[in-house]
């Protein structure tokens, strides 16, 4: 009871003293900040990517994104570490229904293709490696639901090497271009086409693969065991 009251007091004070003034004193900006303005005006010339968010995510703030991939990676590792070795997977009492089985096999290629599309076009349209990766992982989830287990090793290799190549391409930026994760190791190409914006599509594809396989890893680790 005392805890409840204290919690209420704490939250009310937090809201009244900190959040409320914050809310009241931050009206919407009416123009871009100088930094955002730089991205808006120079971004296209710099990196050749029409999607400015992608330009920021993959290149300007590429270190954040590498970190983000790493966060997901260690979360997967941590989950695997915590869950420990699987003794024996639960075999469902009855196989998945025919509808689910057929639906999944039908949808899987489409979902994967869609995922690939999303991360390949990350520099042109909304979306990118993370979104694409999640879509791919949802496809694999289907496979798990119909209990058609793929060897986890495939994903493990895919995950490891996509991550490794991502870092390697980043490092190539130091040697061939201006710095770590610089996308201009490849020609910028024609603005607005799929093979443009230097290494962004490549990097985003690797991120997509990595995120997808990492999420699969989480799913794998969390699957029930007997």
């Amino acid at each position, binding site marked *: 009871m005392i805890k409840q009251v204290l919690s209420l007091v704490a939250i009310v004070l937090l809201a009244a003293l900190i959040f409320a003034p914050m809310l009241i004193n931050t009206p919407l900006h009416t123009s871009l900040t100088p*930094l955002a303005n730089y991205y808006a005006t120079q971004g296209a010339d710099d990196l050749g990517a029409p999607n400015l968010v992608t330009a920021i995510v993959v290149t*300007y703030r590429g270190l954040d994104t590498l970190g983000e991939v790493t966060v997901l990676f260690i979360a997967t590792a941590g989950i695997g570490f915590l869950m420990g070795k699987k003794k024996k997977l639960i075999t469902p009492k009855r196989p998945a229904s025919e509808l689910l089985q057929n639906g999944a096999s039908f949808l899987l290629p489409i979902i994967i293709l869609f995922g690939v599309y999303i991360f390949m076009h990350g520099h042109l349209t909304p979306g990118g490696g993370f979104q694409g990766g999640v879509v791919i992982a949802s496809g694999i989830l289907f496979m798990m639901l119909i209990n058609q287990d793929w060897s986890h090793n495939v994903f493990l290799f895919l995950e490891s090497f996509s*991550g490794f190549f991502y870092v390697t391409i980043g490092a190539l930026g130091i040697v061939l271009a201006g710095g770590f994760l610089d996308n201009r190791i490849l020609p910028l190409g024609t603005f607005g086409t799929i093979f443009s914006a230097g290494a962004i599509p490549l990097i985003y594809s690797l991120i997509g693969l990595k995120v997808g396989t990492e999420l699969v890893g989480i799913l794998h680790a969390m699957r029930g065991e007997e």
Partner: protein
Amino acid sequence: MVSPIYILILSLAIGFLLSVIDKTNRKFSLTAFYGVLTFNVLVIADWFYRFLFLGVPTLTINTAGFRAPVSINLQLGVQESFVLLFTNLIGLFAAIFLYKKFKESNISSLTLYLILIMGVNGLVMTRDLFNMYVFLEILSISTYSLTSFGKTGKSLSAGFKYMLAGVTASTFFLLGVVFIYYFSGNLNIDFIQASQFTNYGSIALFLLSIAIFIELKPFPANGWALDVYEAVDSGIVSVIAVVNSAAILFLFYKIMPILPERFLNVFGIAGVITFLFSNMLALKQKKAKRLLGYSSIGQVGLLVASLVFTANAPQHLIYLIVGGFFINHLISKAGLFWLSGIVKHENISDWNVLRGNRSLLILFGIFLFALAGIPPFAGFWAKWELVKLLVHSKMLFALSAILLGSLFEIIFLFRWFTLTVKSDIAATIPRWDASKIFSTSFLGVIAIFFAAMIMKVYYGFSLIHILPVLAVLVIDIIDFLPSKVKGLLSLLAVLAYGYYIYPFESNIQLFFGIIFIVGSAVNIISTLNRTGKSEGFYGFLLMMIFSFGNLIIATNYLEFFLTWEFMTISSFLLILRGKQAQKASLMYMIFSTAGAYLMMVGFAFAPQLMGNSPLVISLANVQLPLISIILLSIGFMIKSGSLGVHIWLPEAHAEAEADVSSFISAILLKAGVFGLLLVGISYVKFAPSFDIFYWVGWIGVLTAIVGAFLASFQEDAKRLLAYSSMSQVGYIVAAIAMVSHLGWVSALYLAFNHMMFKSALFIAVAGIYYRTHTRNMYEMGGLIKKMPLSYITVLISIIAVSGVPPLSGFGAKWLIYTAFISNGWYLQAGVLFFASAVSFLYLYRIIHSIFLGQLKYEHQDIKEAPVWFIIPQYIFLGGIMAISAFPNLIIKPLNKIAMHYFGSSIRIDGYSIFSELGHWDGHVVMLVTMGAFIVPLLILLLLVGKTQKVKQFNIVYAAERPESPQTTHVAHNMYAHYRKALGGWGKPRIWNFWHSASEWTHSLADYFRHIYTGNGQTYVLHIILYVVVIYIVMGV
């Protein structure tokens, strides 16, 4: 020259690949893992060297081919590389420590560990706020996962609590970062200025800074951290406590420039509060790892506080203070956590298994002493400079809180130490593996290396000031030799040392040189009676003796204080050697440390000294402020066992080994006297308007009388002598406090005299103890025939104490009463006179109970004390007889010494000494008294022809033959009637006072620590409330 970005790249690349590599062979993955960690250390070390010694400018690494703020940039300068070098080193060695577990555990643990270290490197180098958030999350998530390394149920729930607290903090962090972007339009801290945050904008800064601050575990919003420290595997927890904390601390340091000053001040105070309370709460802790947890939290609080308080200090001082505390925390905490992994016992009282391995015990000592801020380790220097800084910037609240916290720290650390060294071994000795011991030893070496660097490079101490520590090291190397050889070598070393420092600049130094060095040299002879190896004894003995000597040649406050601390720690370790000395030595350490802290502040208030002459000379021209005089006097009076703070004294004297007690009583107490004299030297010219020494004089007088009474009621011979020392030093203190010529002559005379007769007495008692195996006087009796030589020593000595003619004590008493009366301190003189009368009680008791009366059955075959005890006794007796018969030998030089500061008040003519009140001729007194004895003796011999020898048991008592003659020897509770007469005055009030102070503190600590309920939700509530409270206090 490898760009530091490759540290991140390689860690990530290998981290990603590790699980694939592991598919082939664990050997490969382990090689890659340790390879990367080593690579990190090497690259950073290379850069650190460049920045520090080659003057390479700070390195900025842009990513993505753009400059900040367009892209994220990293920065590596001397500070970053310093922090990274140590975090990576500890990271590497923690990994080596965990080698066995890594070999067997899931590959994910290696990946997590590698990425954790990568996160630390990124966090320290990045300049972008959001990037800091990302790296902080990398660090946190890998840490959360690794908490389950031990895989116990406890570590899981601790990890979950950790996560709850962590996500709460990162929510605030994220909010802070985006609102900072809103107000400043930037995410790079180099492009953000505090001025961009007008009125409510500072809330954004508040959110960011409080999030980081919560990650630093401020009291009381830190229960989660304690649970983690307690439950998680000791290798991993060392990383959390040391590496993670260091990185987050550096994060705090990085954002400091954009925070308004009022924020920083509040954080500084909150750090101090954390330090104080963590250490206080640790007092009740019995579990080693949780104890270390409290201590870690406290240390980080201290680090935050020192970061804030040193903000405006000169660069080199910041490095020394913050860097010193930093290194100290890193090394000692990692070392102790690793030891806990080696010991594998939860309870601190089971740590005595360490005694099974000498090098581990030494390491334990090193880490513990380093943590406690004992010289020569880094924490000592940092504390000294921080105290000076706080005094100069008038932050007395923070200063007292830090010192009080440090005192609590000393209490629990040294309780742990003494328990480990002294308690009976009950637990079993676990098996130790090599990788663990290797890593832990490495830290010990680093600690010593830094100590040496600070002393040699920063302060430039000459070898002589480091000699006390070197002595320990040297003796440690030759410790395999038999103790007699080491004893002789030590004796030679002390004489050589004395010869080396001999040409003194003033006579007062010479005088104390004789007390300290010659006195010690003679006392060493008694230690030659030791058999076996006496491991560790001579090292600390030499350390103590060299410290005595260094006190008199110290030329500035720091040299003096450093030496003082060397003396304290070495004497503590010597006292600890006694069989039952655990409590006694702990009490000694606590009182000494409290005194040392007062002195430290006293010195910090004192004006800077000019020139390079010893303190006894230079202080004469320095006006100490009143506060300095008060604090220094208290500090020195604690060491000399003055009334009120004397309770350590009898315990330490009694429980120390027999041959150590004489050093403590006869010589160590004189160090306190010497210190008080130093204060007096300044007092002569610059007495403050408030005559504080008048009250010091009264304390001395009361010490004299109370000590005499207490001595009379002791059954234990050594305790009796201890209280007698207390009483005698009370006289000396009172005499110094007079600050007059005659006062000082008598004080020094008394000091010299006391050194000799108390050494002789303690060594005599040591010999008796050696033969009878008891210190209780009532268990002795009639030893006069069995141990005649010892009897003569005691007889002569007690005559010298009592002030009965013809021996030296008479001269001392004559001088001191003359001094008191001519100074107008009549009442004090009266009390002292009474004290002298009381001292007859105990002096009679000691000779009566031990030597007179009836011999006990079990002592029928007892022999005289060993020759090694007899030799020093008779050297001292010779000294006493010499100055008794020829008082000029000593009065003349003392007169000269005192004339240095005052006009002379006595005249010496031949053997006579004239004062305004009268005169005394020691020579004549001696002749007359001897005559008074010899003439009757001759008459008796001539006139009485036949004498009959009475056998000892041939007695008739009150007209009946007692069944057992021993019962006629009244020795137990001998002065019961006097005690009764004292009534309520006889109660141990002072002891009770300190005892209840201790109880009270402990129960307060117990009360406070109940806020840590163990409920993760409550911990989150603590955090939210803490945020609100700090917000209100800051007045954002």
